[in-house]
């Protein structure tokens, strides 16, 4: 900074200095430059700046109005001019003729014009035209031109303006300007920001509206922010009925296996097994038309068990269903399987009651009561109060990995890519599970869709009366959960919509007294409620999520209260054994804890850190065994805010409770926290040491591996860092081909060389072998 010191003696000297430097520069680098091709500089932040500039003027105006009011500091005017110091220089040149204007006026205008220029036209008067290609990749050619012009333009600025600046300034201005224009003269290590307490400075505020490209730490997953809009991109044919449907239904054998799997698969209650007919009987027309599309009635499994209430659900049309004997034998088989069918049934209903308990709203309860009291004709349910879901889009299948391979590696390589799809597995829950666990979630979503179509809730069935079963709701849950897992939030929201707030009467077992005799509670799985409540936050409406979570919390608390008062979950007077009550309390406490967890996550996403921390604290009450992890998590929240001291306090508390974990785990956690603390103190070397320490204990620790590599990069050891990450990926691709790891890896490839493409493609090949169709290809940055 000695050069700097020398420069700062006066404005004119300053600028001359620059002139000299520039000319030297010119001499040095006069020849043609070599284009190294792609430019790794990450300037997306800038890019967004210019995108945002549309609303810029509006925002600017708003700001202007607002802060004109707030100007009652005695030293307004002087401060203000002082603050403008450096910006003035740029613009004074253009405005030099306006000296007659009062200083403040000038300031205001200058700010405006300067602002609009930097944003819209990228400051042509400013340091050269480089601004115009301030996009992700700067074109070398234009830069060259710019460079040659730069000295001329650039020099003009200081030479002309400095004197001007002083001339115009009021005496106070002069007094102040030293502090802004030559911070170094006092050997001051800290930059000086003048205080501005006047209206004018507001015009500089719009800058803060520039999106902080970085900021969404909570939402940081690269896939995450951008994926919200991706559904369209991924399924251009979103709203097309699947062509495979007819085939699916036409195959009788296939359907039979489907039916059997369908009805005795996962559901625990024997009653449920008989449940499906209601789906078909209550909407006979739909079903039959559906089956017509395929082969015919043989594929339409129906059952003698009558749906209690066709009047309530659908049009009171005659029931024209052929009755198949098969399910009966199945039921018998199921019963025969267990030693004591009655005991099992009882036991099951205990479990059912516990799990399905839910407290309906007043309105819903009334409907259910009237259903229960058999007042058929009196029960008239508004169509709006019925749940009429249907697939909103079909055929989500697609394999982004394969698409990329086609693009970059050629057809031959792409052919080798083999993943399971909805056709290649059994059309049943078994196949579904297979798809899920092999991470072929897109195919799994499709399969759910097919199975739902079998329930009469397929594509375009939304808005048509439907009848629900445990199975159909479970299928919906799986489908929607997978959509969320795939970050297809908008699609999930669309399909969730017909379910309303999950409190419609036809979602309760009581609504179907004949199908589910004696069974009470909600068919909607608790996890589906959680999913439903969490969804809005991913679509930018966390407030709605909080509302939903709050009402869930209230019901959970009410159920717990009922249990404590010796009542059943729903508040009815049912005898429950002590043992069962205990189990139920446990279940509902953990569910309440789950709701609190979601709330905390949601608050964290909203960046309301104080409340989020409180919420995580209350989660600890419900999941005491997770205390060390949660406390560490809170510590990391404080680290993210920048509050290192509080983070440290939490990390110390973790060490006190770490005995809750087994030795190795607690050791790792303590080391991990220390490493993070060092990160917060900008000590990457120490952080790296601790991450490496963890690897010594647990060499397969992906987080430590990755984090150590990140630290290496910050220490200027790009090659070492790459080696570590590459080694990790090669060592155990099954685990380490994770989005975040690959993201770091590709980022470093880009930094390393302009020929990063080959290495990225190698990663793609590795991914193609291991990953299913749900892999988020964005992290490869091949686009």
């Amino acid at each position, binding site marked *: 900074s000695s050069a700097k010191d020398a420069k700062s003696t006066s404005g004119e000297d300053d600028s001359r200095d620059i002139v000299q430097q520039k000319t030297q520069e010119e001499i040095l680098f006069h020849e043609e430059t070599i284009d190294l091709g792609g430019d790794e500089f990450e300037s997306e932040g800038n890019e967004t700046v210019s995108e945002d500039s549309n609303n810029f003027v509006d925002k600017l105006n708003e700001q202007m109005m607002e802060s004109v009011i707030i100007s009652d500091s005695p030293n307004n005017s002087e401060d203000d001019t002082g603050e403008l110091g450096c910006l003035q220089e740029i613009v004074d040149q253009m405005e030099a003729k306006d000296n007659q204007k009062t200083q403040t006026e000038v300031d205001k205008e200058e700010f405006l014009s300067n602002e609009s220029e930097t944003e819209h036209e990228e400051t042509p008067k400013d340091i050269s035209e480089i601004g115009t290609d301030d996009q992700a990749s700067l074109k070398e050619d234009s*830069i060259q031109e710019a460079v040659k012009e730069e000295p001329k333009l650039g020099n003009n600025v200081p030479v002309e303006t400095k004197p001007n600046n002083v001339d115009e300034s009021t005496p106070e201005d002069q007094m102040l300007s030293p502090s802004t224009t030559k911070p170094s003269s006092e050997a001051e290590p800290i930059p000086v920001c003048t205080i501005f307490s006047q209206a004018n400075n507001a015009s500089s505020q719009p800058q803060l509206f520039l999106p902080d490209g970085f900021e969404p730490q909570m939402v940081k997953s690269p896939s995450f922010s951008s994926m919200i809009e991706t559904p369209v991109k991924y399924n251009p044919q979103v709203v097309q009925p699947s062509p495979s449907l007819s085939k699916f239904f036409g195959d009788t054998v296939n359907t039979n296996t489907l039916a059997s799997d369908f009805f005795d698969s996962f559901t625990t209650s024997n009653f449920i097994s008989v449940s499906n007919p209601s789906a078909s009987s209550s909407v006979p027309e739909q079903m039959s038309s559906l089956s017509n599309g395929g082969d015919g009635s043989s594929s339409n499994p129906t059952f003698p068990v009558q749906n209690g209430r066709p009047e309530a659900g659908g049009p009171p049309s005659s029931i024209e269903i052929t009755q198949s004997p098969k399910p009966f034998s199945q039921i018998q088989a199921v019963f025969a399987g267990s030693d004591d069918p009655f005991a099992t049934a009882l036991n099951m209903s205990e479990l059912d009651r516990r799990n399905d308990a839910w407290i309906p709203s007043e309105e819903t309860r009334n409907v259910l009561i009237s259903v229960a009291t058999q007042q058929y004709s009196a029960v008239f349910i508004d169509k709006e109060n019925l749940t009429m879901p249907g697939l909103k889009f079909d055929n989500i299948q697609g394999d982004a990995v394969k698409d990329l391979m086609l693009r970059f590696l050629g057809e031959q390589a792409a052919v080798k890519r083999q993943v399971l799809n909805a056709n290649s597995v059994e059309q049943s829950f078994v196949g579904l599970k297979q798809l899920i666990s092999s991470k072929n979630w897109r195919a799994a979503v499709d399969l759910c869709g097919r199975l739902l179509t079998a329930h009469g809730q397929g594509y375009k069935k939304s808005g048509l009366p439907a009848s629900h079963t445990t199975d159909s709701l479970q299928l919906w849950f799986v489908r929607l959960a997978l959509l969320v897992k795939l970050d297809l939030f908008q699609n999930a929201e669309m399909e969730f919509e017909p379910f309303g707030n999950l409190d419609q009467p036809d979602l309760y077992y009581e609504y179907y007294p004949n199908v589910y005799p004696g069974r009470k509670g909600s068919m909607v799985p608790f996890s589906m409620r959680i999913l439903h409540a969490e969804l809005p936050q991913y679509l930018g409406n966390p407030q709605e999520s909080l509302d939903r979570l709050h009402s869930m919390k209230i019901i959970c608390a009410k159920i717990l209260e009922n249990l404590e008062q010796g009542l059943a979950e729903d508040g009815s007077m049912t005898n429950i054994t002590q043992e069962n009550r205990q189990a139920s309390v446990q279940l509902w406490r953990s569910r309440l804890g789950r709701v609190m967890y979601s709330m905390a996550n949601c608050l964290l996403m909203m960046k309301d850190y104080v409340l989020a921390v409180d919420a995580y604290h209350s989660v600890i009450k419900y999941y005491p065994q997770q205390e060390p992890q949660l406390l560490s998590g809170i510590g990391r929240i404080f680290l993210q805010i920048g509050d290192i001291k509080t983070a440290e306090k939490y990390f110390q508390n973790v060490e006190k409770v770490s005995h809750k974990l087994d030795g190795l785990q607690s050791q790792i956690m303590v080391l991990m926290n220390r490493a993070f603390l060092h990160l917060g103190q900008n000590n990457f070397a120490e952080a790296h040491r601790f991450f490496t320490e963890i690897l010594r204990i647990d060499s397969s620790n992906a987080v430590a591996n990755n984090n150590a590599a990140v630290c290496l990069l910050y220490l200027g050891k790009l090659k070492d860092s790459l080696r570590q990450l590459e080694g990790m990926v090669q060592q155990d691709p099954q685990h380490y081909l994770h989005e975040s790891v690959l993201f770091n890896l590709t980022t470093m490839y880009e930094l390393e060389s302009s020929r990063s493409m080959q290495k990225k493609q190698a990663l793609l090949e590795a991914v193609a072998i291991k990953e299913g169709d749900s892999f988020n290809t964005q992290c490869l940055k091949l686009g």
Partner: protein
Amino acid sequence: VMRLTKPTLFTNIPVTCEERDLPGNLFNQLMKDDPSTVKGAETLMLGEMLTLPQNFGNIFLGETFSSYISVHNDSNQVVKDILVKADLQTSSQRLNLSASSAAVAELKPDCCIDDVIHHEVKEIGTHILVCAVSYTTQTGEKMYFRKFFKFQVLKPLDVKTKFYNAETDEVFLEAQIQNITTSPMFMEKVSLEPSMMYNVAELNTVDTAVESESTFGARSYLQPMDTRQYLYCLKPKQEFAEKAGVIKGVTVIGKLDIVWKTNLGERGRLQTSQLQRMAPGYGDVRLSLETIPDTVNLEEPFDITCKITNCSERTMDLVLEMCNTNSIHWCGVSGRQLGKLQPSSSLHLALTLLSSVQGLQSVSGLRLTDTFLKRTYEYDDIAQVCVVSSEIKQS
């Protein structure tokens, strides 16, 4: 080149299910297998995995600009005498940021020269990072190229100040600090460095017996666009207090020193320029109240004590006049001579008055006339006093 902002923590979206649900424990197992989740607490959104910055982000005045500069030999030839130079061009100056200026003797294919540069940003506006590389090829040809990376430095904080002058020569400074970035900001330190004339007391903590608690409570950070008010009390130092009566015009109070931290301890620091205040203009003669009762009885006389200070450069000969207002009635003789008053000296004056109207009454109507210059100074609204009817006060 890549800007090295702090890495961020990977967040995952928890999707859970219960054992009795269709997928069984599949979802939970998937989350367990995901390396980015927290083991044992998979539902916790905030993971431990660090991810590198994915875009340039914003940079603010007072923060440190860090950047990774890597020169990689993509060719299959060894090159020699590589010189890497990184300069930062701001609107007013050009800084050299390279750690070393020595040339590297040779660079083999697929090797690279790495440098991490740091620079504390001290100017607002356009900055251009200029990276220049010169080298010699195997054939002895001298080559060089430059790359430019442009970024804008924004203002992180908006500071507004307001001064309150107390009767007792104390000055209260209220500073409103607004976070005008788009990320939460942890205020590590906001302190007032007083100028030599003042001692400062920070009034931002509530002292309890055990510890002093911040007036901001547990909320240690500022959300985007949030504003926080800090209050400071400044007392003139003894040696200046003597002359306080004559502190006039603009005085320098001090400057605010602000240190903040953002994501993972990314630090920023700013100082304001010297805060200045216009000392309240007392004119030539200052009249201040020394004592006054807060509550008085209706129509009963009460005493006040005034202090009259000569703030001018000359000796004054003062005459005091007392004019009754609608409610305030002065007791005693109006037009009395107060005698000569030397510059910077003061005298104390006891006065008696009564009020004929109930409620909050303003003490007004004092007139001082300097007989030398025949100039009259009017003092109205000197203080307020609450007048109650005597019955109430007795009961």
